């Protein structure tokens, strides 16, 4: 191995860990002249690469589609599972497992204590989780990890229920609830993001499936208790939603009405309503148009926005103020290009508010009658 190759790698590793270029070069004075341009270049390539990030709206949409695919895959594989009942609430029924087990446990008797929480390896597992939490920085990252652990607890509850160990499942249910509460406390705004809602809904669906399984085994008295419990949990979750919504600026952004399309120019209306008790100021605006592609037309590809033509959002821009209880309307006009055989497009508009990180957005899907000649679109319900 040549000395220059070892020296280059050593310096790359050191600079990745935060050491300065000059400090690295001082370690190899006889090779410094040769190393310097190579290190500057490798560092520049890394920096440039790190600046390449997928667009936030694409990432959100892609994550949605991916979780949808995962869910479809799981539903196909669960051939013997009973069809889940669809409850009207959309939030995670984090308390369901704990409460249901409490009720049913009283009616059915508690099984033996031969369970996962009693296993010595389980202590190692929870210790590892605590270490991971300790090594995780940033409130959002911690919140995500809490949700990871809540999902893990959910899996354990399923196993414990299957094994008839309801008492242990009850204990794990408490832990699961604590993790969700900790996630909420760490990053309350995160819980409003669509990604997290998807995860919580998945968690909720698992709990509903669990409820179904227990319901079938439960004696009549316990079944009635479960029904009552579902109602009370519904109420509890509506309260949670109100709590969280109340702590956030209540802003609605909407691609309203039916837009028109003439020779690749989409025109329409954006409405923003401020239902909060404080005035809001727009900090950032983004928009895009996409169209379906891929073998099954299930991937949405951003259309090319034609920048050299006059695009406007009708004055919706950084600094735009939306006062308390005010609704403002903006006429947009965007030129874009999609393949001639495109039959559907999707418009996305998003804003952030001054001093807040949360992004508000609306997605509308339109069926195109004819791309170039007919000037009307049909909104897909």
């Amino acid at each position: 191995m040549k000395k220059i190759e070892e020296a280059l790698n050593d310096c790359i590793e050191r600079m990745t860990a935060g050491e300065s270029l000059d400090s690295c070069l001082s370690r190899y004075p006889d090779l410094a002249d040769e190393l310097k341009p190579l290190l500057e270049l490798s560092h520049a390539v890394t920096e440039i690469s790190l600046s390449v990030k997928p667009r936030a709206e694409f990432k959100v949409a892609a994550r949605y589609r991916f979780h949808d695919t995962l869910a479809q895959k799981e539903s196909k594989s669960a051939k013997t599972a009973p069809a889940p009942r669809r409850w009207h609430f959309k939030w995670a029924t984090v308390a369901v497992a704990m409460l249901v087990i409490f009720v049913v446990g009283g009616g059915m008797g508690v099984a033996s204590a031969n369970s996962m929480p009693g296993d010595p390896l389980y202590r190692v597992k929870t210790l590892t989780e605590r270490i991971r939490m300790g090594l995780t920085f940033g409130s959002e990252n911690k919140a995500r990890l809490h949700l990871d652990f809540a999902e893990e607890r959910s899996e354990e509850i399923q196993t414990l229920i299957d094994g008839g160990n309801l008492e242990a499942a009850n204990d794990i249910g408490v832990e699961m609830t604590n993790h969700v509460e900790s996630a909420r406390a760490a990053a309350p705004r995160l819980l409003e993001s669509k990604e997290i809602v998807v995860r919580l809904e998945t968690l909720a669906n698992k709990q509903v499936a669990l409820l179904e399984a227990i319901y079938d085994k439960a004696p009549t008295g316990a079944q009635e208790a479960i029904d009552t419990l579902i109602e009370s949990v519904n109420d509890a979750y509506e309260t949670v939603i109100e709590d969280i919504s109340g702590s956030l600026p209540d802003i609605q952004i909407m691609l309203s009405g039916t837009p028109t399309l003439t020779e690749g120019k989409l025109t329409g209306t954006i409405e923003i309503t401020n239902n909060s008790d404080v005035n809001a100021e727009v900090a950032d605006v983004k928009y895009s148009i996409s169209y379906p592609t891929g073998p099954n037309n299930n991937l949405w590809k951003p259309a090319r926005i034609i920048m050299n033509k006059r695009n406007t959002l009708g004055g919706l821009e950084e600094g735009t103020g939306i006062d308390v209880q005010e609704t403002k309307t903006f006429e947009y006009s965007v030129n874009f290009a999609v393949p001639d055989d495109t039959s559907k497009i999707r418009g996305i508009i998003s804003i952030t508010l001054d001093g807040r990180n949360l992004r508000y957005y609306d997605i509308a899907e339109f069926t195109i009658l004819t791309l170039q000649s007919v000037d009307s679109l049909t909104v897909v319900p």
Partner: protein
Amino acid sequence: MQDEKNVVERAKNGDQNAFAQIYEEYFDRIYRYIAVRLGDRTEAEDLTEQVFLNSLESIRSFKWRGTPFSAWLFRIAHNQIVDYHRKMSKRQNLPLDEAILSGGVDTAAAAELSLTMDELKVAIEKLTELQRQTILLRFVSGFSIAETAKSLGKSDGAVKALQHSATAALRKALSGGW
């Protein structure tokens, strides 16, 4: 990723959460790997999604053969890029600068990015395949020397040598200040 083997095994057994964890861990890195090769943001988005859909379909066939899971995932990304180039060679493409500016409104940032990315993309194409993979895995995707070595089927020492020759060749390929 903590305890990657455990997560991958769970994903192989159909654990949704495990696969979601893999997705979150690798999404941005896979996107970067593809975007730097293509120089086209929207195509990179399409291909990144496809990489994860393909990996979801085929993860059951993944076997531990001394290479890290990441190498398998990036191999899928590499194959997507090869397929893409094959298809694009058969039809006319948009100019690079127009393509990378598509689909967004952050024009100032995109224009700045496209200039630099354009240079990098063109220069990377002038390297040998092994040099190119070394630059992409080490500097773009953040692989360690050991991970890069296992991905390329080389020794650690060979990858260090490749890293040196690739960086020198990249410098030569870039005109101007480098």
